[in-house]
Each structure stands twice: as structure tokens, then as C-alpha cells.
């Protein structure tokens, strides 16, 4: 990835990244600079299509002179800043954050979580067998997607995608407070009684599998989900004239889910209910 996107030229900010000179366009984050420099910083709540909420705190880095660590995903690079990404202090916080998360929710379907837990030598078990967990049954209240709170890390991405950043439906919000905070619709009703329009954009951005397609959820439950055997084909949605890109995930000659490429300049991974879920007619072989 390049830190210099095409578009209107912007001033370059010069700062120090792990002792090396770094130059990024004004407005770029420390994370952008790290990625441009080939540094791997773990991230969970950061997403490529949304403004990060910097709630997970797994990407923290040390900024010279600052009292606390800074989230790389949202702290903008400033001229003259001295940033260190791999200090003992930053690694300690990442380790503990991974432990806190993994001890309270199920990260089994979070990409790269296991790898980072190993890298940072996190031991989620050390809080003891009685450590409070989210521990809730998945909510299956419609035929299109499933909410599994046991996997939710409250990254706010689904809320942002449903709200003013993409969909403008505002069907979900964080409710409650502290450890009891949950993502929910109004009055904590079933999804079918809510403002949800089933665009599935929340599923698209969910980093942990807490939101999943019903098809995927059922296949995982049945033990038939096999990503290695799936092929992905990107095509154009046939429903209307906008021309959104669909990526069809096919296993055993059946479409098992539909996503959309995030680098599409028009849709950035967003779809509507038809593009996302209306694929059965393609494989109706009667």
C-alpha cells in the first residue's frame, strides 16, 4: 500500500518513525505511515472504509513526550513527531489488550487474532476460570444474518456503517454502559421489528464474525464451512443500473455469501439487500 493516494497534492509531513525519517501527506495517520514503511501493527477496530473509532487500542504506539500511548489508526502524523512502534511499553499494552479481549469474547473467527496472541505472548487464561465473559447465545431472528454477541468486541464499525458514515439507516447503536454495553436496535427488539433494511453493510465491516451471513452461520454449525475450497468471483450486480461490484463466494457450486470489493470507488464495499442477499434465483435449478 502506498501512503500517497492519487488526487489533489497535499503537503508532506516529516517525522520520525522508529528512528527513520518518514514523509506522509498531511492528514495521514501514523498507521498509514507504518503500512507505507512495511511495518505490521496489529489492528482490530480499524477498517479501510470507515473513520476508526480507536476503541480497541491494540494499535497503540509511543509518541515522544506524550503521557499516554496513542492509537496509530487515528492519530494523525504531525511534523517533528517522534514515534516508536515497537517499544516494550507499546508491546505490553497490546499484549494486555489482546488478553482482555480474548478472555471476554470469542476471537476464533477474527482474522490474525491467534497470530497476534502468539506474537505478543498473550495469555488470556491467566484471569482465571471465573473471568467474566460476554457469553451470550447467538441471536437468530431473521433469515439473512445472525448476531453473535459472544464474538463482539464493540468496535463500533457496524454502528458507523449503519449510521452517518455509509447507510444512513441508524438502525443500531451501542446501548448500556461499561462491560454491559451491547450493540442493539431500538428497545433491544428483534431485528425484524427494527429500522434495519438488511443491506448487510454491517456484516461487511464486522472484523470478528460477530455479524455473519445466515448461510455461513448455518454451515459453520453443520461443520461444512470450508473457506479453502471457496472460489471468489467478482461480477456486476444485475438488479439495477448503478453497477455495484459483487464478489460471489462459491463453495461446492453454491453461492454461500456475497461481499463487495472495498476498493471500488463508487460503493466502497456497500451493497443493498438485493445485491447482498438476493442471489438464490441464480442457482435455482428446478
Amino acid at each position, binding site marked *: 500500500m502506498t501512503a500517497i493516494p492519487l488526487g489533489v497534492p497535499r503537503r508532506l509531513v516529516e517525522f520520525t518513525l522508529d528512528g527513520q525519517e518518514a514523509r506522509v501527506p498531511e492528514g495521514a495517520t501514523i498507521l498509514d505511515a507504518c503500512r507505507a514503511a512495511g511495518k505490521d501493527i496489529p489492528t482490530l477496530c480499524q477498517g479501510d472504509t470507515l473513520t476508526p*473509532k*480507536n*476503541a*480497541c*487500542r*491494540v494499535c*497503540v504506539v509511543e509518541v515522544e513526550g506524550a503521557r*499516554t*500511548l496513542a*492509537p496509530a489508526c*487515528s492519530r*494523525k502524523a504531525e511534523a517533528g513527531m517522534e514515534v516508536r512502534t515497537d517499544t516494550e*511499553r507499546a508491546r*505490553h*499494552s497490546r*499484549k*494486555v*489488550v489482546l488478553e*482482555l*479481549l480474548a*478472555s*471476554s469474547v470469542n476471537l476464533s473467527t477474527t482474522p490474525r487474532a491467534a497470530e497476534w496472541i502468539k506474537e505478543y505472548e498473550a495469555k488470556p487464561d*491467566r*484471569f*482465571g476460570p*471465573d*473471568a*467474566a465473559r460476554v457469553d451470550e447465545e447467538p441471536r437468530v431472528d431473521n433469515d439473512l444474518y445472525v448476531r453473535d454477541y459472544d464474538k463482539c*468486541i*464493540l468496535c*463500533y464499525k457496524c454502528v458507523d456503517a449503519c*449510521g452517518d458514515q455509509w447507510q*444512513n*439507516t*441508524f*438502525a*443500531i*447503536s*451501542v*446501548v*448500556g*454502559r*461499561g*462491560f*454491559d*454495553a451491547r450493540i*442493539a*436496535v*431500538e*428497545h*433491544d*427488539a428483534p431485528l425484524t*421489528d*427494527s*429500522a434495519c*433494511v438488511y443491506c448487510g453493510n454491517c456484516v461487511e465491516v464486522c472484523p470478528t464474525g460477530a455479524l455473519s451471513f445466515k448461510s455461513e452461520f448455518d454451515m459453520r454449525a453443520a461443520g461444512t464451512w470450508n473457506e479453502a475450497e471457496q472460489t471468489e468471483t467478482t461480477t456486476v450486480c444485475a438488479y439495477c443500473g448503478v453497477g455495484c461490484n459483487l464478489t460471489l463466494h462459491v463453495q461446492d457450486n453454491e453461492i454461500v455469501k456475497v461481499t463487495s470489493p472495498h476498493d471500488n470507488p463508487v460503493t466502497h464495499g456497500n451493497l443493498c439487500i438485493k445485491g447482498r442477499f438476493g442471489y438464490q434465483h441464480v442457482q435455482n435449478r428446478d
Partner: protein
Amino acid sequence: MDLHFGDSKPTDEEREAVDALLGPPGSAWETAFGDAAVRSDADLRWARGGRAARERRDLLLPGLHAVNDRVGWISEGALDYLCRRLTVPPAEAYGVATFYSMFSVKPRPATVLHVCTDVACAAKGSAELCAGVEGRLGPGSGVSVERSPCLGLCERAPAALVVRAGAASGPDAAAGGGSGAAVGGGSGAAVGAGHGSVAEKPYATAVIAPATPEAAVLAASAPEAAEPEPAASLAVPQAGQPGLTLLRRIGVVDPASLDDYRSHGGYTALRRAFELGPAGVIREVTDAGLVGRGGAAFPTGVKWKATASQPDHPHHLVCNADESEPGTFKDRVLMEGDPYSLIEAMTIAGYAVGAHKGYLYLRGEYPRALQLLGNAIEQARARGLLGDDVLGQGYAFDIEIRRGAGAYICGEETALFNSIEGYRGEPRSKPPFPVEKGLFGKPTAENNVETLVNVLPILTMGAEAYAAIGTEKSTGPKLFCVSGSVERPGIYELPFGATLGELLGLAGKPENLRAVLLGGAAGGFVRADEMDIPLTFEGTRAAGTTLGSGVVLAIDDTVPLPRILLRIAEFFRDESCGQCVPCRVGTVRQEEALHRIAERTGAAAAGDIALLREVGRAMRDASICGLGQTAWNAVESAIDRLGAYE
């Protein structure tokens, strides 16, 4: 924005409560979608609302208060109606309503008795009070008993607060109450008798402190007949003594009388401010060396100058009166004993930073301060001391009170902005800082009550004379909230630089003092043999502790320390907003570890103490805001300085 509302309807009573705040609805679309009977021809052609309604989103919190005050809880129908009136998505409003501890989205009795269980009250027998109250008020009593975090009445511990929902008392209350009764009787089966009786009884609050179970139960059954609170000056043992600066009017002036305030030197500071001009005021405050008294100790002059110089307009002034730190009650005493001084100080601050509107964010648990400040603002407005032309100087300034609803986190400056704006009271990431993008995204100066009140002596005595009080780096007088095991708990004013021992000497130090909690739950403990710590920012820092918000909570050796530590951990777990992982999960893990070692010492506790240290370090380093960053301070200091669990 594509809003979807359910089909639940408000009761007449809930609708009246909302309409009393927002005015009658302008269009049938705002009342109940699909209610053809009330739709006019115009309604069929366009829907009013849109951006104009959305810009009133900051009325969401007052709207939730209106319903909660009237009915005691917030039903689906009431919430949906409020959302329709303000074009707020119901999911977001539900997220806001469930954020605050004083609101309930489930039916509950109209009367709620909050019993304080926090550090100072716990040390004075709140557990017995809770048991006594719950023994007398079982299910079906029509009173909901709720354990509460610090109610800010620490000098009169243990404390309780009764809030009874009902119609607003006033000339139009009778009519509103009547129609509410009919609806409430029909649909309020789940709430039982409590709901039906709401209509006959007006909204009432009562503060009982020090509380006995009998007095608390009596007040819960008839809050309007409860004994009046003792005067605020009784919380100031030095009241009336010569040499006081910040407290000099407390117990001397009538807090309800503007004339009395003026006859005791009121509004001379504002006149001086107009002579100096905004830049001159900022220069005086800077030269005086005033730093924020809320705990962060940031230079006030720097903050004001940065706000005043922002090109973006309008500028805002916010007074942070959400004093919720356990053990802190100084702002309450200032507001109750000398409310006009805060109004005058806010006017000066607003003038200095170029703001024409000041928001006074007052914690929801202070009914008397609310009433007195409301009266003070009204009187000041009537006399031209607030409004379009303050003192005839051509400067427009007005103050609006916003009530919090039970959330410690809303004392964090950016969480407070979100709360006023009608969002969940979650802190924002900084930068950008409030002086650049604060309330409503505009440059904002936010100061707490004590900081603002210090501006008055700075202007009346001059920066030089003010800076001569205290030490070189900590200038001026300082208020301390002394509570716990002392003979004369209360607010004390001392110049910076007095020692902890001198302060406790004034308050009556107990023989068997074990420790002192300095700075509240977010502060730290010091030992009984550390009485020579100078009470200054630099002195406490050098001693490895903090002055914080000025809490001095004395704990004698009869108070079980592990229980106090557990209570502090519980407090942070309850008050974490839940936004970031280190705080949301870390506060839970901290409490779990303290539970495990509650009865253990030495090697048996060592493993969990090491765990606590690791989690605490990550919370301090990686949490978004001060709540998570300081949640481990007190426990750490108890382990390191007091040798708890050794």
C-alpha cells in the same frame, strides 16, 4: 436520514411531558405517523422538521429528563415520540437513555430512593442503611431502592436521595395531572399503584443526610414533607471566619437574593472585567497563575487565550459542575451557598473567551443546587446581568443549565460535550482539543466550578495580590473536601502550601488514623505518617501522589481497607463507559482480582497483585480518557504505600 419508528404510542402524560419542553408539535408527522385524524391538508403536502428539528438534538437529554421526571421511567412510546419530535433515530436515543443510571427503560415505581454506597458513606455505615431501608421497603412498597455512587454529601454521610416522579408543580400542573391519571390507570398495570398515583403527586425530591433507615423510608413516602436540608454553610466549618476568599460569602449571604449578593461585593469583578476588556481579563488570569481545580491542573489563562483566538465562531463556555468524584462536594457547597458568584464568574469567562452562551452542566443528583442556580439565573436575567446587554455594556451572554443523569464519565470534558449534544456520554479522542473543536464542534472553554469562582478574587484583588497567596507554582486559595473519620467534616479553604497535617488538624484528626485518600477514587492513598506533605500541585507530585479534585478522605483503623478498595474497583467498573477495551474489560478484571484477594495476604495475594499491576499499567497507558487511565491509581497506592495485602 431514513428514520423508522415503531407503532408504540406515548400516553397522554408522556406526550404532555415532552410537549411541555418542546412546545406543541407543528405537524401530524411529528405526533404519530398514520394518525389520520390529526392530519391537516398541509401535512399531506410536506413534512416540517428536517434539519431544523435535527438541530435540536441537544434537547434529547432534557426530553428524557422530562419523561423520567413525570413518569419515573421511559417507555417505548415515550421514547419514540421524543425521537419523532427531534428526528433522532430511536436506536440512538435508546443508546442514550440506557447510558445514564438515573433513567430506566423498564417500568419501575414512581419513587426511587438512591442510597449512597460510596467510599465516604461506606465508611459511615451505608451497608446498614441499605439493609435497613430494604427491610422496610420490600417489593410492592411503591419505592425502588437503588444503590448509588457518591451523592456528593460526604460531610453528612451516610446519604440518601429520594426522587419522586410526578407532574411539574405549577399553575398548569392540575390539568396535566388529571388527564395523565386516566391513561396511567389503563395502561400502567405493570407499574401497579405507583403509576396511578403519579398524577395526584407533584414531582418532588428530598435529600436525607445523615440518613437513618427510618428517616429515609419516611422521606420516600412523602418527599415533599421531608425535613429541609441544613444550610450549605453548615458544610463549611470555617464559615464566617475572617481571611476566607472563596468561601467568604457562604453562610453570610442569602443564596436566593441577588441584592444580598451585590451588597456583599457581588458583580464588582464583572465591572472590573468590562474595564479591562477580554484580553485584559485573560492577562490577569494568566498573571495570577490560576490553574484548573478539577484535577488536571491546566493553566486557565492558556486555555482561555487559545479559545479566544480561534477564528471559528461561535465560541462556547461550559461550566463543568458534574462533580462526581467520590469524596468531592466542594462545588455543591459553592453552588448552594453562593450561586450568584458562579453566574458572575461564568459571565466574565464568557466575555473573556468571546462566548455568548454558557452551558452549566450540573450533575443530576444536586436538586438544591439546580433550584438555587435556576433562581439566580432568572434574577440576573431580570436585572440585566444576563441577556442581550449585560450591564449595559453591549455584551450579550446567557446561561443554560443542563442536568446530567448519573454518569461519572460526563465529568470528562469531551464526554460532557457529547452528553449536552444528545449523544452517549463517551469521551472523544484528543486531538482535536476542545479549545479548537469542542461543544457542537466549535471552540470551547470548559472550566469547573471552583476554577471559575477563583476568577472573582483575581479581578477584585488583582493578579499580583492573588499570586502572592500560596506558593510560586500553586497560587491562590484552594478548597478541600474533608470527610471520613474526622471530627468536623466539610469544605476547608486554605492557601496552597498548607500541609496535610495542618488541614486535618483543623478538621479534627482521629487518634487512630490509618490512611488518607487524596484526590478521590482517581487519586491515591497516603499514610498516616505522611502528614507533612505540602498541599500543592508540585508538592504532592514530588511525594508521588496527587491533589486531584481536593478530596481528603480520612480512614481510621476500624475501616476495613480491602472493602474500600473493592468499592473503588466497583465504582470504576460501574462508571466505565465501555468504549475502549482497556477500561471496559480492565476494570472488570481489576475488580475480580480484588475479590479473589479480599481475604488474603502475602504470597497468596502476590500472583493477583502482579496481574493487577500489569492490567493497571496497560489501562493507564492505553485507555482513551482519564477514567481508565486513573482507575488503578488508588489501588496501586494502597498496595505500595499502605502495604495492603502484605
